[in-house]
C-alpha cells in the first residue's frame, strides 16, 4: 500500500528536504523572536516615522515576519511535495 509509492531512498531524500526547510524557517523564527530583540535597547536609537526601531520590531516587525514565514512554509513544502509526487490528489 503506502510504501509502494516511494522507495526507501526517495523517502529519505524527501524527508531530508522537508527537514532542511523546517530548520531554515526555525532559524529565521529564532532570529525574529529572540535575536533581534536582544538588541532592542540599541535599536531604539534608530527612529523611523516616530517608531523607535527596537519597539517597532517587537510590536510589528516580528509579527509580519511570522505571517510571511507561515505562508512561505506552506508554499515551499507544497513544491517539495510535488517534486516527489507525494502531494495529495
Amino acid at each position, binding site marked *: 500500500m*503506502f510504501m509502494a509509492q516511494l522507495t526507501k531512498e526517495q523517502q529519505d531524500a524527501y524527508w531530508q528536504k522537508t527537514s532542511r526547510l523546517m530548520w531554515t524557517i526555525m532559524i529565521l523564527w529564532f532570529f525574529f523572536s529572540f535575536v533581534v530583540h536582544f538588541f532592542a535597547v540599541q535599536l531604539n536609537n534608530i527612529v523611523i516615522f516616530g517608531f523607535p526601531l527596537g*519597539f517597532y520590531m517587537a*510590536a510589528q516587525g516580528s509579527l509580519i515576519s*511570522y505571517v510571511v*514565514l507561515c505562508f512561505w512554509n506552506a508554499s515551499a513544502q507544497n513544491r517539495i511535495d510535488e517534486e516527489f509526487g507525494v502531494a*495529495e490528489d
Partner: protein
Amino acid sequence: MAYRIGTGGFVANLGKIYAGYTGGFIGFTILLAIAEQMGVPNKIIGYAFVFLTIFVYAYIGFLSRTMEISEYYVAGRVVPAFYNGMATGADWMSAASFISMAGGLYLGGYNAIGYVLGWTGGYVLVGILLAPYLRKFGQFTVPDFLGVRYAGNTARICGVIVLFCASFTYIVAQTFGIGIITSRFLGIPFELAIFAGLVGILVCSMLGGMRAVTWTQVAQYIILIIAYLTPVVWLSTKRYGIPIPELTYGQALQQITELEAKLGIVRHHVAPFTDAKGAFSWTEFHNFWALVLCLMVGTASLPHILMRYFTTPSVREARSSVGWSIFFIFLLYFTAPAYAAFAKLEVYSNVIGQPIASLPAWVQNWSQVAGMLTIKDANGDGILQLAEFTINQDIIVLSMPEIAGLPYVISGLVAAGGLAAALSTADGLLLAIANALSHDIYYKLIDPKASTARRLVVARTLLVAVALIAAAVAGTRPSGIIQMVAWAFSLAAAGLFAPLVLGIWWKRTTSVGAIVGMMAGFGVCLFYLIATRYFDMPLWFGIRNISSALFGLPVAFGVTWIVSLMTTPPSKEMQDFVDSIRTPKGAVAFTAGQAHE
C-alpha cells in the same frame, strides 16, 4: 439560511453567506447608532448587542446540530483553509487578548510586548512542526496521536491529564472574563452573570460539537475584529487624519516620550527591560525571554488549537490554514500596541495636570465603577497629578470608545466583541476537554463497543458537566485572567510539546521514553508553579511562575531523549507509521492492533 450547514452547498457558498452576515451586522450597528441619536437609552443598546449576538451564535449552533461522529468531532473535515484560519483566530483570541492585552501594554510599555510576541510566534512552530502531520494522522484528538504513536493507553491517559489541567485552567479564566463582561453590560451580579454566560457557551457547542463551534467561531471572529478595530481607527483618523492606527501611532509614541519628560516619568513607554525606576534590569530581561518562549511553545501544544487543524480537507489546506490563522490573529495583535499608545497619550495630555473639576466625561464615568479608575487629590491642590491617578488594565479597551469621544453604540460594539472573543475560546476549550474525556477515556478505554448514539450522548453530558464545574470554579475568582492563561500555556508546553514533536521528528523516540519524559517535564512545571504560588518557594533564577515551562521543557526533552536511547528502538511497523504521517499522499500505516476509523 437556505443551505444546510456543513453540506456541499453551504461550503461552496461560504463567501456569500458570511459576507451577508457581515453586512447584516454592520447594518444592525448603524441601526442602533440611529436609535441612539433618537434617544434610545444606553442600557437598551447594551442589551441589544449582548442578546442579539448570542442569539445568532445559538442559531448557528442549532442549525449545525449533528448525530454523526466525524461531524461532531472534526466538523466533517470540510473546513477550507481561509475559514479555518478565522475560526482559529477566534478560538485563539480570548478575553485576555481582547480585553486585557492593550491594557497590559498601557501599563507595562515594552516589557508587556512579550505577550504580543509570545502569542503570535508560536504559529510558526505549529505550521512547521505539527499541524500538517497531525492532519495526515487524521484521527479525532491530540491524545489519539499519543495513544497510537506510543502504542498504548498509558500515553493516551498521560495526554488526557495534561490536556485537562491546561485546558481547564484556561477555561476558568475565560468563564471569569465572560462573567465580567456580562455583569457589566447586563447589570447583574458576577456569580449570576457567569451562569448566564455559560448558557451562551453551551448553546453554541452542545448540539453540533466541532461543526457548530467552527461556524460560530467564524461568525465570532468577524464581530470581534470589527469591534476591536473600529474605535482605534476612529481615533487615529481624528488625531492624525489617517485611518491606519498601526502607522500613525509612531507619532503618538513620540508625543508620549516628550510628555514623559515633562511629567517626570522615569520608566519610559518604549524602553525595553526596565524596572520600576526605569533602569535596565537583568531580571526583567530574563523574564521577558522566558515568557516569550513559554507562550510560543504553549501555543504549539494547546489541544484546542491543534485540533482545529484536524478539520481541514487536506494536509495542504492544513498548512496554508496556519498562515491564515496567524494573519487573522496578526490583525488584532499589531493593533493592540496602537490602542495602548493612543490611550496613554490621551491620559497624559488631557487628564494629568488638569483641574479635577474639569476632567473629561469618560474619567468621571469610569471612576464610578468600583476599583477600575481612581482619582485621589492627595495634595489637595485641585490639580490631578500622575501619582493621584490609577487605572485598571482591564478597562483600557472597554473605555476606549469614550476616551475617543465616540457614541455609546461603539461601547456596545466593543462589549459584543469582547464577549465573542471569550465565548469562542471557551467553546473551543470546552470541546477539547469533553472530546478527550468522551473519546479517549470513555470510548477508547471504558467501552470500545459503544454505539454512535451512545458516544454522542456521553460527549454532550460531559460537555455540560465540565462547563458547570468550570463556572463554579470561576465563581470563586481564583486569580487574574492573564495569569491563569499564562499558567495554562506553561502546563501544555511542558507536558505535550516534547512527545508531539519528537513523535513526528525523531523515529527513535520510544513509548517508555515519551511517557517518562512527559511526566517528568509536566511534573517539574507543576511543582514549580504550585511551590512558588502556594508555598512561598523562592524563585529559581528570578523566573516568575507564569513561565514555569522554562524548567519543564528541557527536562521533558532531556528525559525523553535519554530514556529512549536506553530502551529498545520502536518496531519497523511503528517506523513505517511515522513515515506515513510524514508524507501527505497515501494511507496512514497504522500498526496492528490500533483501532482507527
